[in-house]
């Protein structure tokens, strides 16, 4: 596990090593204080050697300063280590995410991915600084305290350590308890949060159907089960600390008892017993904290496992023979040849799809939900790979084209015109070079003139946290984005939600600009959009059942006519 983490996180070995050294040396100092105090009590103060006393006090102050210094070095190094490893891991994950196949995102909820990519990465990134190093520090303190006590006075040392095995057992038992209850606590908390979140989002529905009391009772039950676990969790903790504290005090008692025995034989000095009373208060601390540390480390390891799992998810592969797309003018723009596709073998989405889209023509795909329209587009974009059949673009099988090159020539416009947080200009140009004249021209063609009177393309932020745009405006921005990219082929999945008539008209004008001099494949239900298409394919259960122009299909009086006649 640690080897794997070392490989993924690749912490700077020099910094890691230096931190370890600072840590080990730093944990020796706490034991020097009682030793010096013992000397003072036994020698300097009692027998009146002012020079000796001054020397010992000077030594004490020196230890204090060194202790703080080593502590500081260790903290600075550990934090720098954790911060830079986390940053690197974050970049690694982000790049990886971009190359995961689209179906992965469809089956993995955004919330889960968010946790992986943010809090799990943070937690795993600090594995060395917070997890392993802190645990290491605790172990060092524990070992040093045992070693010092046995070294200083083995009789008193053994007496003080008499409860040590019991404390280890208690600590181990509680650690297991905490771990299992923490897991339950977290799952109860997220269940409660999810329930509350949903209730708040749906409060309008609850109120309009007057189910407030009913929902409040449901919530009471959820809350009760959360509080029950939370209480259990707290009660466990409530038991642990006093118990360890009591045994630590009992260790002291055992030490005193040993002391009395030695006093009776005249073998003990005041300094030694005082030093041991001090040691006893140091050595119970790591025992108290160690269970927390191990649990933190376990949580970190669990986060690391999830991060590794994400990193191990296969990315889309571009085979070695893939190349850059060359546009041939003598072949069809899009060619589907007996294409078959299924997510599950028993439920084929595309049964046997074949069609041609000539260069510069417009084709509409129509049909009910689940007929395979969207899947066809995703296959064209190589988001999915067909199980059988062949798809060609400008005469080249797409399986042989690099995705990056493919996407330069095919643009896809989905149902949800997505805006990234940023300015309008960034949203339209994305990474492409900015050209003032071209940008202005495209905004005009995409009917954005009116919007640009309200907001500034270069300073006003849109998208999350920025200015909210209407769904019609967002659609226009997406059109402008595609115009700026100027691809040879356009795949458009038109939103079916109806908008008010003025907005519709504006969208139609922008769409005409978008379709000009381009090959286009449209998924649409809008009669006005179908009207501009050269051919229409009606899909049903993954195959074309009717094809022709809008007029010829209406005349056929079939399925298509029954849907579109009245509109």
């Amino acid at each position, binding site marked *: 596990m640690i080897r794997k983490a070392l490989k993924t996180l690749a912490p700077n070995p020099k910094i890691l090593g230096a931190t370890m050294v600072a840590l080990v040396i730093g944990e020796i100092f706490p034991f020097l204080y009682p030793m010096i*105090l013992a000397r*003072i009590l036994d020698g300097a*103060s*009692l027998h009146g050697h002012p020079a000796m*006393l001054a020397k010992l*006090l000077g030594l004490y102050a020196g230890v*204090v300063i060194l202790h*703080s210094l080593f502590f*500081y070095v260790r*903290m*600075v190094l550990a*934090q720098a280590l954790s*911060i830079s490893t*986390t940053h690197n891991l974050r*970049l690694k994950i982000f790049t990886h*995410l*971009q190359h995961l196949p689209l179906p992965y*995102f469809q089956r993995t909820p*955004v919330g889960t*991915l968010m946790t992986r990519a*943010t809090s799990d990465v943070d937690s795993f990134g600090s594995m060395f600084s917070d997890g392993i190093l802190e645990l290491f520090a605790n172990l060092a303190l524990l070992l040093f305290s045992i070693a010092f006590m046995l070294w200083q006075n083995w009789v008193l040392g053994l007496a003080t350590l008499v409860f040590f095995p019991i404390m280890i057992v208690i600590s181990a038992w509680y650690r297991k308890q905490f771990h299992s209850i923490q897991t339950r606590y977290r799952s109860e908390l997220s269940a409660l*949060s999810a329930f*509350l979140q949903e209730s708040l989002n749906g409060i*309008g529905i*609850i109120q309009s*159907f*007057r*189910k*407030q*009391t009913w929902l409040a009772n449901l919530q009471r039950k959820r809350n*009760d089960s959360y509080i029950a676990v939370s209480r259990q969790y*707290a*009660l466990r903790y409530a*038991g642990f600390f*006093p*118990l360890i504290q009591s045994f630590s005090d009992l260790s*002291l008692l055992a030490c005193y*008892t040993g*002391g009395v025995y030695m*006093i009776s034989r005249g073998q*003990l000095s*005041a300094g030694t017993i*005082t030093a041991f*009373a001090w040691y006893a*208060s140091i050595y119970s601390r790591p025992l108290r904290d160690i269970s927390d540390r191990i649990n933190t480390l376990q949580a970190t390891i669990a986060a690391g496992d999830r991060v590794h799992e994400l990193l191990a998810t296969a990315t889309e592969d571009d085979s070695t023979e893939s190349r850059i797309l060359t546009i041939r003018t003598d072949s069809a723009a899009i060619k589907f040849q007996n294409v078959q596709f299924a997510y599950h073998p028993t439920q084929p989405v595309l049964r046997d799809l074949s069609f041609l889209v000539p260069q510069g023509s417009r084709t509409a795909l129509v049909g*009910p*939900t689940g007929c395979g329209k969207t899947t066809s587009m995703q296959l064209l974009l190589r988001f999915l790979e067909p199980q059988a059949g062949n798809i060609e673009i400008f005469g080249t099988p797409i399986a042989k084209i690099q995705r990056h090159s493919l996407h330069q020539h095919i643009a*896809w416009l989905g149902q949800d015109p*997505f805006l*990234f*947080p940023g300015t309008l200009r960034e949203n339209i140009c994305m*990474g492409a070079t900015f050209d003032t004249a071209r940008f202005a021209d495209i905004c005009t063609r995409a009917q954005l003139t009116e919007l640009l009177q309200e907001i500034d393309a270069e300073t006003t932020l849109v998208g999350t946290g920025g200015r909210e745009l209407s769904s019609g405006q967002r659609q226009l921005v997406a059109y402008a984005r595609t115009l700026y*990219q100027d691809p040879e082929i356009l795949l458009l999945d038109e939103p*079916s*939600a109806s*908008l008010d*008539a003025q*907005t519709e008209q504006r969208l139609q004008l922008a769409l005409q600009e978008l379709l000009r001099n381009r090959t286009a494949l449209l998924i649409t239900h809008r009669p*006005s959009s179908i009207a501009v298409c050269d051919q229409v394919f009606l899909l049903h259960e993954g195959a074309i059942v009717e094809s022709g122009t809008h007029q010829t299909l209406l005349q056929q009086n079939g399925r298509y006519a029954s849907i579109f006649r009245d*509109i």
Partner: protein
Amino acid sequence: MHSQIQFLSSHVIKYWRPISLAFLLATLSVALDHASPWILKLLVDGMQTGSNPTQLLRFLLILALCIVVSGIFGYLQRMLTANFSRTVESHLRVEMFTKLLHQPRSFFLKSTPGDLMQNLVQDLDKLQDLTGPALLHFYRTALTLIFSTVLLFLLSPSLAVVGFVFFVTLSFASLKLMTLVYAGHKRNQKYQASLSGYMRDFLHGIAVVKSSSHADFFNDRFEKYSLQVRDNALGIAKLSASIWPLITLLCGLGIAICIAWGAVLVQRGTLGAGSLAAAVLYLVRAQYPLVGLGIMTAMVQRGRASLDRIIDLYRRFDASSIQKESSDPPPEFKSLELCALNFSFEDSSTAVLSDISFKLKVGGTLGIAGSTGSGKSTLAKIICGVIPPPPDSVLVNGLDLRTLHDYAPHGSWRNWFGYAPQDGFLFSWTIAENIAIGNALGNAEAAPAAIEDASVRAGLGHDITLFPQGLSSILGEKGVNLSGGQRQRVGLARAFLSGAPVLVLDDVLCAVDPETERRVVQTIRESKPSHAMVVVSHRYSTLLDCDEIIYLENGRIIERGTHAELLLLGGIYARNWQIQSMVNQ
């Protein structure tokens, strides 16, 4: 501060018994904790005077008793505290949620779900920390400080002064330093939030990202955010890394000064060695809780900020008391009449609706058309009782709807209306449970046959056969995902299930494909005899059969009539109809 105490005392006072018991137990357990250094003094003194071992063993017996009793008391006190603070949390959450459920619409316009979630989850959790662990830790620390100082005074008055100065300096330093780090962390959270925000948007728009050929564009921006987090964190690290070493330095030097002064006293012969040993141990043992004060202060600061937010929420709550909603069947519906309705939202002077009048009878259908922002949805919400209307402008069976809102806010009259909004919200329950919310009774359980019937009438019959478990399929992230049109139809099924005599459908079919829309509209028409309906739609084909269509612009009716009449009129409605049906021209 005053309001905080007031709020806390009103919610906490009823638990005075366990609280005072916890304080008592804490006092006793802390007092007994101070026995062991004193016993050390007795041992060392005894060692030097040469008292007999039996005497010393008696001291040890007393110490053993102190340890055991202190442990038990400490355990009982922590148990009481943990228990009581969670009882307060639990009670407040249920109360807060129940109040929230009964707030009027206007309340939710002013608070975001994110803020309310924070109130319900994090704020109450922080308050629990404040009323439980933080409170008792402060009490125990204060006691430690007092007991240690008093015992030091008994050992040597001048050493007690030095010790007290050390205690006070350490407490202040710890508090001050922790406050600084806390501020740094808050800054860091801000950067973390913008990083997460970017990541969330990126994941939501992943299909757009993947279909674009600009991977570098996204990488560069992400790196910018991540660098921001990194650099800020490195900046704070310099400060936060120095805190614990500084405290170590302070503790070390403070104890060194006390030892030095003590040793001088011993050399002068005014202090015994045993007393010096005990004094040093008192200092060593007190430093931990005092340092802990800093950590606890962060907890208290967070707790108080949370408490402020909770108090603010309670202030914003509607004062009217919570009543149980009536589940009785409503009186027979006869007519709905709007008489020159003018409406504007509380905090604005702009009229949303002006001079709206119409009459709707049993079996009648009213269509509402108009451009985005013309007031259609607001009108629909007023008609179905979601937003209270001004007095004397909406009459049902001749009764003023406003009077009903004011005097019987949860009366059976509300069961007149079945409302299906544009964005039919779905819970991550089964489809059947989602539809069952529409049930007319107080609970949300309905006969499976009734649910199935409602779903079929809403045009979901075929869709449901496609889901693995039919109506019992769970929705949301853990189960099947519905398309926009399917979601809307589940909302419609709810309204059907309610069996309400007045159905208000707010653009409920806009995301449905034309084929399905026609089927659903036909079904609605068939059930017409028993229902009055108000249908808001952008797609005029839905409105063809309405008894009357009103066309709104800027909250006013600018055209009205049947579909045929409006076409003859040749106004905006007719022009838009042409745009929508361009194909047939």
